[in-house]
């Protein structure tokens, strides 16, 4: 009883995920739903989406750094690509 009100976690964790409802849990649901899936879950998460979301949360930081460092070059490339049509 004490534990639930004293141990503290940030509501958004360091991976920009929901504390206590992390994306790993969606993965667990995905596995269980392969065995017993009944009800309206909007088609479920989909393996491809799930992997992308997982990568974004857990490898997103290095990805963010890369995007920042190469932002100008990426923009330039995209502009050239657009200009070429």
């Amino acid at each position, binding site marked *: *009883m004490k*534990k*639930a*009100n*004293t*141990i*503290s*976690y*940030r*509501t*958004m964790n360091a991976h*920009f995920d*929901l*504390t*206590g*409802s992390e994306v790993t*849990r*969606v993965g*667990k*649901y995905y596995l*269980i739903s392969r*065995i*017993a899936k*009944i*009800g*309206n*879950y*909007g*088609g*479920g*998460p*989909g393996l491809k*989406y799930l992997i*992308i*979301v997982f990568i*974004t*949360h857990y490898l*997103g*930081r290095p*990805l*963010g*750094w890369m*995007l*920042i460092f190469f*932002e*100008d070059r990426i923009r330039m490339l995209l502009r050239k690509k657009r200009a070429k049509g």
Partner: protein
Amino acid sequence: MKIKTFYKLNTLVKYADKIAADYDTISFDLFDTLLIRRVHFPDMLKAPVGRFIAAKAKAYGLFWKPEKVHQLRDEIEAAQRAKTGERFEDHEACYPDFMRDVLSHVFEDQISDELLQEVTDYELAIENAMLVPRTELVAWLQKQHQQGKTVLVISDMYLPSEHLKRLIEHAGFADAVTHVVSSADTFKAKASGAAFPMLKEKFGLEPQRWLHIGDNPISDGARPNEFGIRSLIIKDASEKTRKLVFRIYYGFALGSDFWKGRMFQQMMLPLENENQPRPSLYNEGYHFFAPLVGSYVQAIAERTRDLGIKKIFFMSREGWTFKKFWELAMPTVFPDDLPQIEYLYVSRMALAGPGCAYQGLTQTNADIVFLAPGNRDFRDVCKVFNLNLQLLAPFLDRHQLKYDDPLSPFYSDEFIKYYARFIDILEDAEFQTEVKRQTRPSNDALQLYLEQIGFFDYTDVALADVGWMGTIQRFLYDAVKHRDDKPRFHGFLMGASRGIPFATRPGNYVEGLLFDYDRCDFAGSLMMYAQDIFEEAFRAPHSGLNGYQQTDSGFELLFRDSDDDTGRKELKQNEYFASLKQGIFDAAPRFGAASAVMGYKSWMLKPWLNYLLFTKLAFPKTDEVATLKHQSHLDDFHGKNKPWTQAFKPEKQLWNQSLSALRWNPFLRLNYYIGHAFKMLRR
């Protein structure tokens, strides 16, 4: 001078602090520097304003699709930018000017200053809901102000400085800012660099003593630098990642119903200073209960608007949480037209008696008493319906029933014999006359209470409650159905288990909005795994209502005494769940803002809510069960007798399993899940 770029906010602040002594003027970019948005794309905030204008137009009898309004806005704004570009170097726009044009198109000749003000207020309210100040940088800004420096906020934005001031005020640092400057005021922007000489002249600033901080390498870096202003650029990798995560969810939500709710929750996440360490119960309230409550109250708003219902009564005690959530969230979602709301003090115990005042004690209502295994005999009937046993004793004698003869199947094999005698009593007209006589005063007091709160002023009222069988509504209807001015009852329950069939009629029905047993919704039925937790989580902090009593001056509400053992336990449980409730309420305004921006209907979140029920109730972590399981659940309606164990085998529930079983039995959850599926199919 070399432009210095920083990839972390704290390093920028540290560096700026080191060199600050050399500067008298510090200017800041506003968006993505001092304030960050919860969403990745600022134009997303135009959509709710489009919906707002379309709804307003509808009230004027003009039919506009929100998308059309949005498109018109973009066209008029672009035209204004092109026109400005002919006279100035920057292609800037000014919100009041182009919005007035938009409204003139939409409302034809009916545009007024009040209408423009209303639209502006809504636009700024949505902006405020989506903007979060960057704690570290704002703290440094305030420090510079305290040191007597001139602090400027400069933005290339269509909102004029008066509007930007309102955003800064909401963010809480307006008093630390000397001047707010917007390109919309003069059409001289940072992008071309025209803003800087203009500001120098206007405020008498020295470029050599001026430090500028922003996120755009050109507008906030190169341009001020060319003018001799020292500039620091922030390219925050962490913030970039956060937006990237949101952008991924946003993309998925466009193509998959499942991810809509997840994206919604990503938008609701607390940022910066809002994201403090919290107890795990708080996070459960924020991430699990809040989306469920939000979706439920939004569904009520949608249904009442569709049906033209003007008044909603949130019934005690769970309605207290729903009403508070509504107040924090729904005005943002439906700014144009919402029904009035009121908290209604009711309970099964308080209404059971008044429900008998005109129709007497019906068999169906009496049967409700014996659904609770703790209720055994005629004494329990008297307790629930607030009847005087001594005055009814002659009728028991007449039909050869003793007050302690078991009437519930959970107490004796022979209960049917006694139950038959009980039916005879119910059919005795004199017994019913006595019941009506005894319950009439409480009914009269109830009528006075309902009249005082204007219950009979409406032809249709919505009644909102957590669930499950609609008993409170049933008793309330019984108590007022004799009146000609009774309104039509539209009952909206969070979950409808329908343990006893509800006597549905056009003027009185219940509907489960997140789960209804009458609809085939297996995923929603997972709510039934732990009904008590919902009741405890949403319960109001006041004592339960025991009844209504007439007084010389009118009536009074009789609340349960909170000094006894039961009351103390209830108080303790409320204290335990206080942080959970706080999590729900903190999430409410963000739910409202997210809903307004995305324009989702409540049913669009259903697949994700079903997933939440699946993962939190059917497949919970052991720690979650330990955390969320109530310490004590109290209900006076449920008697205190112990049923005969051979007849009563309480249904085994996952949430009643021991923590060690939950921790070590790998198939326990799956077993219960499959068992629940079969049970639902059988029913």
